C-alpha cells in the first residue's frame, strides 16, 4: 500500500476536481475535508493546500521562485529575470517572490524547489576565499 502523504492527497483532490464545474468542485472539496477529519489528518491541511497549489501551477506551467536580492528589484530587472528563467526552466510563466537580504551585498539568488542558483556578491567572495586558502 502506498503511504498517504500530503502530496498524494493533493494529487487525489486534483484529479477529482479536474475540469469539473464550480458547484461540483465545491461538493468534492467538502467531502474531501470530511475525509481528512475522519482520518484525523486535518492538521496536515496546510501542507495539502500547498501541495495542491504547486500541482495547479505545474499544470499551468508556472514556476514559483524566490529571488533574494539586496534591494527591491526594478520592474525592468524583474522582467529580465522572468525572461531568462522562462527560457531556462521551460516555463510558461514565472512567479517571483522577492526577499530582501542585505547580507548578500549585491547580485541575486534564485531558489526553486531544492535548487539554488547563487549569483550574489557574497557567493563570489566566498569562492575567492576558497581559492586563496586552498
Amino acid at each position, binding site marked *: 500500500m502506498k503511504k498517504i502523504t500530503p502530496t498524494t492527497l493533493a494529487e487525489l483532490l486534483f484529479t477529482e476536481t479536474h475540469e469539473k464545474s464550480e458547484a461540483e468542485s465545491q461538493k468534492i472539496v467538502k467531502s474531501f475535508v470530511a475525509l481528512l477529519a475522519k482520518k484525523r489528518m486535518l492538521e496536515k491541511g496546510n501542507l495539502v493546500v500547498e501541495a495542491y497549489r504547486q500541482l495547479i501551477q505545474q499544470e499551468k506551467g508556472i514556476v514559483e521562485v524566490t529571488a533574494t536580492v539586496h534591494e527591491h528589484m526594478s520592474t525592468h530587472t524583474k522582467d529580465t529575470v522572468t525572461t531568462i528563467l522562462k527560457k531556462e526552466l521551460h516555463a510558461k510563466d514565472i512567479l517571483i517572490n522577492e526577499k530582501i537580504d542585505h547580507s548578500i551585498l549585491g547580485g541575486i539568488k534564485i531558489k526553486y*524547489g531544492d535548487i539554488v*542558483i*547563487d549569483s550574489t556578491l557574497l*557567493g*563570489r567572495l566566498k*569562492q*575567492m576565499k576558497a*581559492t586563496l586558502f586552498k
Partner: protein
Amino acid sequence: MQKNIILEQLKKELGDFKAHHTKERVGAVLEVFDGVVRASGLSDLKMSEMVTFPNGAVGVALNLEEGSVGIIVLGDYLGIKEGDEVKSTGNILELPVGDEIIGRVVNAIASPIDGRGTIAGELKSYPIERVAPGVITRKSVDQPVQTGIKAIDALIPIGRGQRELIIGDRQTGKTAIAVDTILNQKGQNMICVYVAIGQKDSKLRKIETRLREGGAMDYTVIVSAGASDPAALQYLAPYAGVSVAEYFMDQGKDVLIIYDDLSKHAVAYREISLLLRRPPGREAYPGDVFYLHSRLLERACRRNSDYGGGSITALPIIETQAGDISAYIPTNVISITDGQIFLETDLFYKGIRPAVNVGFSVSRVGSSAQIKAMKKVAGTLKLDLAQFRELEAFSQFGSDLDEATKKTLDRGRRAVELLKQPQYSPVLVENQVVVLYALTRGLIDDIALDKIKEFESGIVDYAQTHAKKFLSEVREKGMWSDEGEAEIKKVIEEYKGVFKK
C-alpha cells in the same frame, strides 16, 4: 615595498580566478538527533554522497527516502539547527590515504587519533564506498595467509582474498586470534588493517601496545570508532578501513583486514535507523542490515594480474549470545563469508585454547591455498580428530575398551593437546609440519599425554639444527622429498631417545 609584494602575490594567485554563479541542490534540516539529521529536499542525492552544513560540518547521506533524507554528521553536530541549509556536493565521501598511514591509529574519517601529528607524505582521496570488483577481475584463492595458529593453519586454512568469519561468545579469544594473526604477518608481505568498532579505549590501547611491541605496527593501520564515539562513526569505521585496504591493494599489495566486531557495527546501524524512524524488522534491525555487511565483505577479493594483482583478506568477527549462531546477524554474516572459525566457551574453560571447535569450523576455499606438506599431515589429523570426537562421548561409559578404540582415543587426546597454543606465540608453518608429522605418523603415541607440550617445543628446537633439509624443503618448496622424510623420521626417533632419558 612590503605591501607591493603582497599585492603582487595576491594578483598572481587570483590571476586565473573567475567567479561564476553556482547552481546547487539545497535542502533544509528537519530534525537533529545524536549525530544524525533528517533533511528535506536534496532529491538527487546519492548513497554515501557528501553534504555540507552552514557551520562547516560535513555529512554523509545514509538513507534516501521520498521527501527526506537521513544524513550522518561527521564532526560537530551540536552546531546544526533545524532549518539550516544542507548542500549536496555531488561527491561520494572520500578519505585521505597515503603510505604513511601505516603505523598510525586513525578514526572513521582517517584522521589520526594517536597524538603523533598529521599523516606525512602524499595523500590520495579514496571513496568510502566503492562497487566491489567484478568477476572477471578476480582470481581464485591459491596463496595462504599464515596465521601461525596450528589449529587454523592445519584444519581451517585461510587463503589470500578469502573472507573467514571468527565467531564466538564474549571472552572466547576472538580478538586474540586476530591479533596473533597480525603479529604473524611479519615478513609475509602483508599490510594489516585492524578496525575496532565500539571497543573500550583501554582495550584498544592494549592491542596497540601489543602490536607495537611485536613490531607489527610497521605494516599495520588501526582504524577505530570507540564505544564513546557516536553510532554514526561506528557505522562508518569498517568502510573507512576497507578504503584504506583498497589503497594498498591498488598498489598490488596483499592486505589483511579485521573487523572487530560486526555485531557492534550492526547495533550502531540499528541505533541510527531507529533514530531515523525506519521500520524495524527482525530483532529490531532494519530490513537492509544484510546489505550493510554484504557490500562491505564483497570488497574483499583477490585480483588477477591483468587488473594489478593484490588482495584483501577479511576476517570479520561476530559475537554470539550463549553460542547461538542462528540469531539474525550471525546467520547473515555466515552466509556472506567463505567459512567460519567457531570458538566455544566450554572449550575455553576446559583449557583448550584457542577454543576452536574444529568440528563446527570450516574454510570453504582455503585448502586450495595450503602448502602440500601441510595438506598431507592435515588430512590425517582431520580424520584422527573426527574419529576421536565420535568415540569420546561413548568412552566415558565403558572402561573395557578394545585396543583399536583405545588407540584412537589416545591419538585424539594427543592431537587436542598439540593444537593448544598460548597467545602471542605463533608457530612457523614448517615447524607446524614437523610436530603434526610426528603426531599423525604415530611417532609420539608413546609419549605421555602430560609431556606432549614439552616434547613439542623440544622437537622443534632440535629439528632446527638436525633436520635442516626437511625444514628448508617444506619452507621453500612446500613439500618434503623422500630424503627429507627419512631425515625427519630419524631425527624424531633420535630426539625421543634424548627426551625420555
